[in-house]
């Protein structure tokens, strides 16, 4: 029982109401639960309760072979499956010192950036849906349908790709697919502008987002926020630029950073704005890669029974939800000894309790959506 200030003033006995947001709820992204104590509409604490989607991917890593683990990494975050594939394959290649073909690297970047487009489209679309704007959501999904179809042409699957393999990529990208990808990119650029006109410039939307759940730079570093959450707080840090991997050093793209031009620096609008800008930057990257795509084999020869040397390594990839870290230990056998996936959504959840004190129930939904947390990433 909490005695609020009202109790002392008026003698009315008031209690905080405990509400459970989730696990079945239309707008917690995935199966998440928050135990929220509210005083009317104002939240006094929101404690996340995760684990509903825990599939023990890390334990499975110790039981399957190196090649066989790649489809499991897809499920670590099914909206951004390519990145988890790439992280694990990079870790395995680092341990075994396997070279990756140049064409394979470019195919990887094309696939990953298309996946980033798809993931950000879902993120901003569902974010708009949570706020109440249903039209941008359907438009975003319509574009994502095209990306899914392109992915199906590339690797045969629409959601969990198992495309990036140890040593390169599973299938080569055919010239027809390259043409279709560039047609899609030409089609996509005005869509982002329309999205901005519909949603980003909308006064009601801005009022809902500006100044809500501000994350300061110190908090962003202390709570290890990564990806658009970190860049939305004003820290210009992107793994593709600062700890580069693959062929990103040869590509030209900007890193969008939140500037606080609407509302405060580090608020929900900044995080959302960074994602919109990243949509545009990813288009640029894919265009450059399509132009620079060299000829050659898509995958290098890797042993069927893959046995890397004894050792461990830590690899980071810039996934749509932030820096996904793979800590892989090998003991020389054909099964990994330990696979650890450290995802951006997990650490983003840790800041929710702090940020949610004093905001309203409707703002909690905005907060969760702007942090772009994703249940499969949290629970693995």
């Amino acid at each position, binding site marked *: 029982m909490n005695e609020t200030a009202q109790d002392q003033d008026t003698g009315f006995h008031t209690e905080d109401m405990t509400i459970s947001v989730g696990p079945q709820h239309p707008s917690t992204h995935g199966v998440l639960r928050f135990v929220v104590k509210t005083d009317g509409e104002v939240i006094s604490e929101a404690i996340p309760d*995760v*684990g509903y989607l*825990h599939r*023990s991917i*890390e*334990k499975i890593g*110790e039981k399957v072979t190196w090649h066989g683990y790649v489809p499991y990494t897809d499920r670590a975050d099914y909206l951004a499956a390519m990145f988890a594939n790439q992280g694990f394959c990079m870790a395995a290649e*680092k*341990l075994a010192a396997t070279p990756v073909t140049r064409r394979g690297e470019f195919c990887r970047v094309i696939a990953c950036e298309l996946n980033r487009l798809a993931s950000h489209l879902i993120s901003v679309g569902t974010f708009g849906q949570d706020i109440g704007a249903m039209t941008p959501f359907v438009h975003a999904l319509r574009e994502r349908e095209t990306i899914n179809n392109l992915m199906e042409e590339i690797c045969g699957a629409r959601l969990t790709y198992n495309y990036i393999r140890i040593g390169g990529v599973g299938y080569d990208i055919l010239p027809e697919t390259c043409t279709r990808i560039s047609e899609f990119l030409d089609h996509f650029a005005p869509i982002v502008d329309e999205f901005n006109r519909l949603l980003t410039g909308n006064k009601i939307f801005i009022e809902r987002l500006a100044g809500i759940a501000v994350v300061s730079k110190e*908090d962003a*570093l*202390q*709570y*290890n926020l990564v990806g658009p959450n970190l860049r939305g707080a004003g*820290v210009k*840090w992107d793994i593709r630029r*600062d*700890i580069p991997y693959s062929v990103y050093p040869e590509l030209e793209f900007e890193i969008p950073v939140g500037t606080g031009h609407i509302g405060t620096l580090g608020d929900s609008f900044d995080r959302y704005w960074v994602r919109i800008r990243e949509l545009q930057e990813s288009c640029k990257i894919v265009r450059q890669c399509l132009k620079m795509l060299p000829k050659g084999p898509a995958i290098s020869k890797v042993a069927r029974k893959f046995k890397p040397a004894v*050792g*461990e*390594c*830590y690899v*980071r990839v810039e996934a749509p939800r932030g*820096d996904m*870290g793979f*800590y892989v*230990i090998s003991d020389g056998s054909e099964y990994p*000894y*330990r696979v*650890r996936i*450290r995802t951006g959504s*997990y*650490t983003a*959840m*840790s800041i929710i309790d702090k940020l949610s004190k004093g905001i309203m129930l409707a703002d909690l939904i905005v907060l969760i959506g702007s942090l772009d947390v994703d249940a499969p990433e949290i*629970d693995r």
Partner: protein
Amino acid sequence: MEPSEIFARLEKQFAGKVSDFKGDVQEPYFSVDAEAILEICRFLRDDAELKFEILSDQTAVDWPKEEKIQVVYHLYSYAHRHQIVLKVDLSRDNPTIATAEGIWKVANWFEREIFDLFGVIFEGHSDLRRIMLPEDWVGYPLRKDYVEQEEYDGISTQRAPLVDKLMR
């Protein structure tokens, strides 16, 4: 800074508490004594030359053959762009270590996961309870010798052998 320089600096400051620097591997690391972990972490975070403001990852690895559970800290510095890995060896019977929550707030959630899946107790943690698994789960799944409990809440956790299933 190079990892060897980082280690040298730490050795100067905390002689005897850090050891076993391995520099010629993919991720250079060194071992830290469990009692000294807090002061070393604080030094790593606050020292101007080192400035490891980010705890990238905190996880644990189970080495049953060497009878230890190893807690691994991956630290990164945005300011100086270097990284270092700390390893702390704890006994398998009673793995206890001080919490790093006061130094990097994100350690709160990392440590809850390590407690949940490995059984490592973090002293001083504000809210040490299971995070992924239900509160009344028995056992620490990511340990190598983990065997599932027979039943949970009346539901059997064993899969019936395939032939029996087909016959039924």
